[in-house]
């Protein structure tokens, strides 16, 4: 069973990282979003420092949405989705493996980029660690919500915006606790642990709900 999951993981990673896979574009988009913020609010470093964590979170959230609509649609088009149904693993687990591969290819680079962009926004070292930690926990959950949206939109030709519209309201709790934990690390008014643990709890919740709901959506879409 784990061999099959590893095979799915490896295949999706290969597809994402080769030319045309689109893994790198998310990072460029993240960079572009963060770079345009100072042009909008002004080159005011104290202000940027104050809103820096929020900017990084919004940038990472938006960048995580990219490519989610292809997560099952590409497999549907070339027929490999049918093989996924025949795989010797529960469909929910196979879907989770796909989400994990998608996050490693697109979400992990965002997390790696976040501290560098944070430096440009004047965020200090302690908050950089905090914001990176929250992104490590939070962005995979965004991908797992997106897994469901991608499964709902599996047969639709142009569903990028639809997926974004479906994912963003569901991701609000992640954004709240992700930014709150970072702010807690900066101001120290409340301990970092409280919002961070809530963020972890909500992420774990989506790690379970996302694949199960996505598998159900795929089954119904096949009927």
């Amino acid at each position, binding site marked *: 069973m784990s061999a099959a999951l590893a095979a799915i993981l490896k295949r999706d990673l290969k597809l994402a990282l080769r030319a045309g896979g689109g893994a790198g574009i998310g990072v460029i988009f993240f960079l572009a979003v963060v770079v345009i913020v100072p042009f909008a609010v002004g080159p005011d470093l104290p202000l940027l420092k104050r809103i820096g964590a929020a900017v990084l979170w919004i940038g990472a959230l938006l960048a995580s949405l990219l490519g989610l609509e292809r997560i099952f649609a590409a497999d549907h088009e070339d027929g490999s989705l049918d093989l996924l149904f025949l795989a010797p693993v529960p469909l929910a687990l196979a879907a989770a493996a796909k989400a994990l591969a998608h996050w490693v290819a697109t979400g992990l680079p965002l997390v790696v980029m976040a501290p560098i962009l944070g430096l440009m926004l004047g965020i200090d070292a302690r908050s950089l660690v905090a914001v990176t930690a929250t992104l490590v926990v939070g962005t995979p959950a965004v991908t797992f919500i997106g897994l469901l949206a991608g499964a709902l*939109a599996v*047969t*639709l030709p142009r569903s990028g915006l639809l997926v974004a*519209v479906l994912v963003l309201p569901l991701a*609000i*709790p992640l954004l709240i606790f992700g930014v*709150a934990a970072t702010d807690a690390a900066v101001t120290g008014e409340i301990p970092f642990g409280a919002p961070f643990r809530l963020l972890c709890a*909500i992420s774990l919740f989506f790690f379970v709900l996302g694949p199960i*709901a996505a598998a159900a959506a795929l089954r*119904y879409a096949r009927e």
Partner: protein
Amino acid sequence: MPLSELANPHRFLRLVRVLIPALAMLALVLIGLGLVQGFRAPADYQQGEMVRVMYIHVPSAWIALAAYTLMAIASLGTLVWRHPLADVAAKAAAPIGAAFCLLCLVTGALWGRPMWGAYWVWDPRLTSVLVLFLLYLGVIALWRAIDDPGRAAKAAAILTLVGFINVPIVKFSVEWWSSLHQGASVFRLDGPSIHPSLLQPLLISAAGFVALFFALHLAAMRNEILRRRLRTLGILAAAEAEAR
């Protein structure tokens, strides 16, 4: 009447022909009565005449929540019991629920401006209703994106249920979030408990809104059944034209 008897669209259409005008009349009478009583009641000692907005604001908030609950139950009906009218009910409820949600937000903003000094404050309750509105729009967008009704029904049902599970989490998060940002400085609505002279018209008006919702909902369900019949007829006509 058992729910299974309603599965027959013909019987359902015959039933709603009677029910829709009856419910519409009931809604008109109840809302009218509620408003007359409500405007005759003395003004609130704190809010003054502004409290009159309550008779539409609070019932629309209730309807917005109830309609989403109805959609979630109907979604279970689609996925688990496969009741043929369940997805019709879910689809018809979405735009109506969204409209009442919007009405709640608009009247709330107009109530908030004189009371709080701002059209919008990021209060947990307001924010939760706003997220509910976004969920409604997402479900409607999904219904519109998939053209096969059966497939759209199942996808929308899953999204509705996931959204329904998420509502408490969103509620908890925004409450936590706004307690962090605003604390005790916020002017909160839940001040003195409501006086009976205000409560009675509110309840009558709310009953009227429920009747109004069901009249609209049944009418929208009828439209949806007719739309599907039209779709089938169109496909049949096209097939026949091809055969000739």
